[in-house]
């Protein structure tokens, strides 16, 4: 078991992560009628909007307090107040999220105070305003996502009489994934509140009229009632307790918390189903049984092809865990698993899994693509699974990439990538297997020619080539 934990370096070369406020925007997009304003320089907001818009192919309106030199020297209060005024005028939102950026945090803005002053002056007691301190240097987009999710829940949750719904809290997965989870819950007749639900807001159907704030998102009233739920199922085993909305609901209101991994992969999905059946007493419907059977069928059909795969997996911790496990189940053994976040739990959780298979995997935490590339080549990786920035591995090292996660900006359909549930796992697995096959067919004639005809027996078949399945 190789581990690289003390990963200090002076230069980050080709980042594998984005910054905290960008991640913080997303949960707000999963609340009905919400708008976000970033307190800081204009440029940050523009970059993040572009990044998010490119992935989802949706207009992403995020305001900025557009701090300028004056604001920076004398404090940004005026900018933020004017910003809020204008935001309300232009969008009339039902809830506002205020996220800080590096700049606002560095000049020491007290957003909590400015916000309550603003609320009092404008008598806006009914409009929820949620503030989230998200300096870009405070963490990656993953921590930003969870902190914002937690602040939304803690800001809106109210003591509520017990009801029969369960809370489902989802990490940064695709809108298609969220829809699939909702479908599964519906099939099982479970009454639920899913948060944050950006399945419609970040993947809206084409419609007759354009709305600046799209329909959809978790209802504010439903979030407020989360403390009354029978249980919380939170898809997030890698999150820190301080950032965990589920943990908050448990500590403050005694809602039992079940943390589960993203239901990608047979075992992960089985676990998700078990937890649901345990909590609700409902059982797995026949249609899902059949989907499970089809996944098993798919796993058998592809197992020999998959055996040739040596995967490098990168992205957000939660995704890396679920995908690594899926790969292991199918013999596509990971050789490198990496994240740009500083996450203590991921390495621990992965190590436990890896040890079951007695394999060597290089784990890179707080990593960048330079490291990922070096380790991938030395470990002979032949398939990459992760977001679009991994195209760097394809371009430089010829490792084909299965696009999954965020951002997917060089292909269409990032918002429609489905990889959860038995069905989604089947689809993901097919994509991975077919990528391996495509690469094999692309090269095998020339590689056999090179190995056996051209070079005769000089370049004998080495064990490494057979095992890794790497081509010429």
């Amino acid at each position, binding site marked *: 078991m190789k581990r690289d934990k003390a990963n200090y370096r002076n230069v980050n070369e080709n980042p594998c992560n984005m910054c905290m406020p960008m991640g913080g925007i997303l949960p707000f997009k999963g609340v009905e009628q919400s708008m976000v304003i970033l307190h800081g320089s204009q440029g940050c907001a523009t970059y993040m909007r572009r990044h998010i818009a490119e992935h989802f192919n949706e207009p992403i309106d995020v305001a900025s307090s557009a701090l300028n030199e004056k604001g920076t020297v004398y404090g940004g209060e005026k900018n933020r107040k*004017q910003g809020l005024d204008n935001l309300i005028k232009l969008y009339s939102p039902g809830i506002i999220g205020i996220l800080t950026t590096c700049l606002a945090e560095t000049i020491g803005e007290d957003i909590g105070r400015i916000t309550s002053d603003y609320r009092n002056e404008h008598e806006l007691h009914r409009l929820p305003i949620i503030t989230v301190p998200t300096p870009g240097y405070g963490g990656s987009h993953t921590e930003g996502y969870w902190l914002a999710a937690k602040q939304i829940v803690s800001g809106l949750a109210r003591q509520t009489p017990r009801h029969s719904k369960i809370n489902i809290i989802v990490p940064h997965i695709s809108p298609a994934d969220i829809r699939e989870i909702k479908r599964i819950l519906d099939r099982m007749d479970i009454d639920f509140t899913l948060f944050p639900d950006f399945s419609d807001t970040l993947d809206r159907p084409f419609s007759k009229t354009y709305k600046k704030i799209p329909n959809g998102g978790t209802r504010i009233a439903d979030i407020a009632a989360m403390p009354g739920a029978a249980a919380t199922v939170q898809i997030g085993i890698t999150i820190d307790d301080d950032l965990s909305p589920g943990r908050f609901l448990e500590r403050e209101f005694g809602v039992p918390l079940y943390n589960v991994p993203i239901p990608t992969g047979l075992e992960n999905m089985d676990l998700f189903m078990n937890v649901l059946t345990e909590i609700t007493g409902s059982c797995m419907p026949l249609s899902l049984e059949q989907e499970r059977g089809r996944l098993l069928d798919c796993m058998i059909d592809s197992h020999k092809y998959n055996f040739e795969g040596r995967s490098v997996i990168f992205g957000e911790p939660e995704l890396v865990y679920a995908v690594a496990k899926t790969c292991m189940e199918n013999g596509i053994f990971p050789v490198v698993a990496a994240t740009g976040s500083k996450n203590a739990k991921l390495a621990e959780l992965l190590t436990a899994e890896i040890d079951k298979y007695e394999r060597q995997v290089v784990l890179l935490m707080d990593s960048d693509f330079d490291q990922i590339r070096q380790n991938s080549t030395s470990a002979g990786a032949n398939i990459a699974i992760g977001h679009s920035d991994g195209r760097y591995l394809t371009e430089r090292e010829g490792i084909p990439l299965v696009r999954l996660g965020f951002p997917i900006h060089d292909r269409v359909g990032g918002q429609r990538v489905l990889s959860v549930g038995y069905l989604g796992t089947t689809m993901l697995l097919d994509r991975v297997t077919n990528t391996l096959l495509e690469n094999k067919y692309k090269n095998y004639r020339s590689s056999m020619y090179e190995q056996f005809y051209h070079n005769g027996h000089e370049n004998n078949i080495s064990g490494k080539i057979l095992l890794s399945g790497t081509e010429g």
Partner: protein
Amino acid sequence: MEMDAGLWALEERKDSITVKGKHKKQLKCDTDSVAGCVSQRACVYCGARVVLNPITDAVHLVHGPIGCASYTWDIRGSLSSGSELYRNSFSTDLQEEDVIFGGEKKLARAINDLVEKCNPKLVFVYSTCIVGVIGDDLEAVCKAAAKKHDIEVIPVQSSGFIGNKAAGYRAACDALTRLIAPQKSVKMFRNRSINYLGDFNLAGEAWIIKNYIKQMGIDINVTFTGDSNYEALKKAPQASLNIIQCAGSMSYLAQKMQEQYEIPYIRVSFLGIEDTSESLRRIAEAFNDKEITRRTEKLIKNEIEKVRPTIEGYREKLSGSKAAVYVGGGFKAISLIKQFREIGIEVVMIGTQTGRQDEYDTINTLVDDGTVVLDDANPTELERFMVQKGANLLVGGVKERPLAYKLGVAFVDHNHDRKHPLSGFTGAVNFAREVYSTVCSPVWKFVQQGRQSL
């Protein structure tokens, strides 16, 4: 349709929106963005990075927290005939403790590491917003590093909050001015070549223009900055003429070079047949050489003959369409109006993120009465005017694309990430084809049906 330009818009924004023929007022531009407005503008750092990034063999090091570097990694389509070093995004990845105790030491170490690893002759260090606030002395760190490694380490003063993208262009030009300044010991000889300013070799555009100029019998000394490198840029003072395309980003440098090296400059544009032909002629004129003029006329004639029929074909299909334009700089906006005219399309709304007063004046003389002109627009305004003016095509960047599509309107990408050249005669055909591919796509038919039946 009732023209209510601006009535619903925010008070602070009203002076930045005009309707040609209706309002006499001068458009307000080049100001800070209004808070809370969802401006489409990028920052100073972004402007500086766009201009300098195409320098292929330089290390581009972003001194700041990770996000600023993450969002700008290899997102531009500048091509290189040599080094690929520029396609990496290096960042000092500042952490909380660096913000508290200062990031100078980390920066110095980062430069050391990079010099050891990449062995560059040139390092650009970009400052970001918080570096401006925590007060790191970039100048001093860069100077010490340059001395230590005996290479050039140039600070780019691009703290994001000191203005907008245009200020970033200026910061980049300052860095370039420093870079090209010859050492006293080096003697420069003037030759008959030209420098080409303001082409970033997106999808090979600078190469296309270089070929034209070569066919005219003139050499390009160096391009600022598409596919340029350290050695080539150092020779910039040798040229006898500067031609500048993207005026927004490069006028300042051209002026500096005129002052310091007495190199005169002329403005050119290679967008569209009309501008391209005229620009090539003006370059030839500047040389006042019969052979050059003859070659130039021959080139223009040949090229136009090649592309005219195709463009005419598109023109027939596109005639009568209405375009809305929202792009970064004024130069691009002006060229687009002319280019659209070449293919029979009228511009009904036009705006920029960072256009200057003189550019808006030109825009105003070019467009028809009733055209909405606006500076630093937000999505609300774009949406309102596109619908109001019946635009069936929007030209813009990545952020504007989904808005157009949600409105059921065609879209043309005019950003730095494009994968096909839009410059020169070849580019004029590509442009017409792209417009055709989106305006005349069969999908709109179904979208319209959907709308009626809903």
